[in-house]
């Protein structure tokens, strides 16, 4: 079963970011699977919070195309208003959030709004959704994206969801942002991490089958490589079994 897709690897890596006992603002797509994997492995008491207005302590039994699908409500611990889930996050009760990104820069700022001038954009992206809220209010967060030079850029042209801002230490607290900001960017090629207290992303581990040179080539800024850069551990059989149980047709991980 050692064969796996890049998405399956990303899910496995993301699931390892979830600590037992965490309240996780789950979001959509791969993170829904990451929560399921973690909950069934090393984080049995992790809870999931969904901005649609749900709290859960176990993954949905059925496949989820969206967080609002009926199986996500069965067994839910709370079905409420979105603003109540945001209230918990604004109080610092959300330990970890996941955000999807279209564009990220070296300081972890995300753009999901506009490529080019907002007045007449080259590309109009869907927008923040809950992304900006998670980026600002959750204690720490992680983003997942395809590793392409056009996506990992020196500076994003529009900051939808602030990471570590201009990269100077303490930027977030100076700006009055409550949460700690991004801790990792999980891409199709590697895992990037940020120093505590903010700053610039560096390569922490490269995914099996890929090289540091390849990562550098696909990144839009001169990339810092940590001295102890390692190879990302591949998904375990247990992780893959769990992933394939919750994404039986590969809707998220094999398309």
């Amino acid at each position, binding site marked *: 079963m050692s064969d796996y897709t890049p998405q399956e690897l990303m899910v496995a890596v993301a699931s390892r970011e979830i600590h037992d006992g965490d309240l996780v603002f789950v979001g959509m797509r791969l993170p829904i699977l990451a929560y399921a994997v973690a909950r069934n492995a090393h984080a049995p008491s992790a809870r999931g919070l969904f901005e649609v207005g749900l709290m859960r302590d176990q993954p949905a039994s059925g496949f989820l*195309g*969206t967080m*609002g699908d009926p199986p996500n409500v069965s067994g839910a611990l709370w079905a409420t208003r979105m*603003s109540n889930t945001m209230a918990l996050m604004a109080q610092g009760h959300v330990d970890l959030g996941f955000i999807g990104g279209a564009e990220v820069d070296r300081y972890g700022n995300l753009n999901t709004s506009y490529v080019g001038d*907002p007045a007449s954009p080259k590309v109009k992206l869907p*927008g923040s959704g809950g992304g900006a809220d998670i980026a*600002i209010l959750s204690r720490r967060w992680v983003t997942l994206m395809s590793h392409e030079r056009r996506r990992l850029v020196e500076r994003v042209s529009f900051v939808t969801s602030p990471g570590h801002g201009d990269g100077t230490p303490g930027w977030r607290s100076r700006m009055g942002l409550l949460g700690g900001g991004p801790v990792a960017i999980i891409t199709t090629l590697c895992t990037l991490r940020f120093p505590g207290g903010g700053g610039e992303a560096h390569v922490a581990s490269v995914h099996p089958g890929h090289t540091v040179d390849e990562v550098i080539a696909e990144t839009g800024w001169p990339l810092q490589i940590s001295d102890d850069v390692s190879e990302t551990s591949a998904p375990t059989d247990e992780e893959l079994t769990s992933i394939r149980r919750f994404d039986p047709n590969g809707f998220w991980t094999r398309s």
Partner: protein
Amino acid sequence: MSMAEAIERHVPDGSTVAMGCALEALIPFAAGHEMIRQRRRELELVGPISDALFDQLIGAGCVRRVTAAWVGNVSEGLGHSYRRAAEERVPRAIEVHDHSNFSISLALWAAAWNVPSLPTRTLLGSDILRTNPGLVSQDGLVHVTAVRPDVAVVHVQRADEHGRAHAWGPLGITEEAGLAADRIVISCEELVGADVTLSDPNRIQFPETKVVAVVHEPGAAHPSPVQGYFKRDHAFYRQYADRSRTVDVFDAWLEDWVLGVPDRASYMKRIDVDSLRIKQHRPSVPADFGDE
């Protein structure tokens, strides 16, 4: 009341319309399609995230402004009509007032409580503050200007003819949208008697004094899910993504699924309702409202 009559009467051109307030579930597609058939123009659409419906109304040229946190296709990604309108002004230019999910909720609570704005700690450090004039940063807080919909259009599981609506499952910003709106139009899977709605007044979503229309329209939320009634039609969303990539295929899709369809009943005849219907029932344990 029929959906055609409800939209004719209560959603005139230029209206500010809140829809899709429960996010991915209970999206009032039938109401939106009727707005398209009636050639509504100059609408301002208000919502949190919109899963395809706003994209369809934008592509049909009904929309002047979008005030929302996210517009696209949740399981498929980008909203192609939204992109064309914003990038190429096709079929027309639209104005975008960006929000986050939390800030659009607060904008509606501000209107519900009749105050000019509400403060929040979210959006600090976000460029959304630069593109939305209704978000003002001051004294370390963001002040979210009230958004007052003329009408909130909501799909629910059941309602009575007097406008008492029962909805369940995750409800997103449905409550504040209804309270903030001048009036509420409801579509429902089941039209029930007051004996059902009043048996559980805590599940009634809105003050009936704001409800101006109740339309009995089973399947009105397709392809979005309805707890206890319909699963989400993922394939339909994928098909819409494919058939909205260019103006030509979108126009064909619109003719095929909206303009060429007289009403929701005819639309439902073309859906594999049986494969989408939820068949396994999970009734809630009753609450005892006994009083003597």
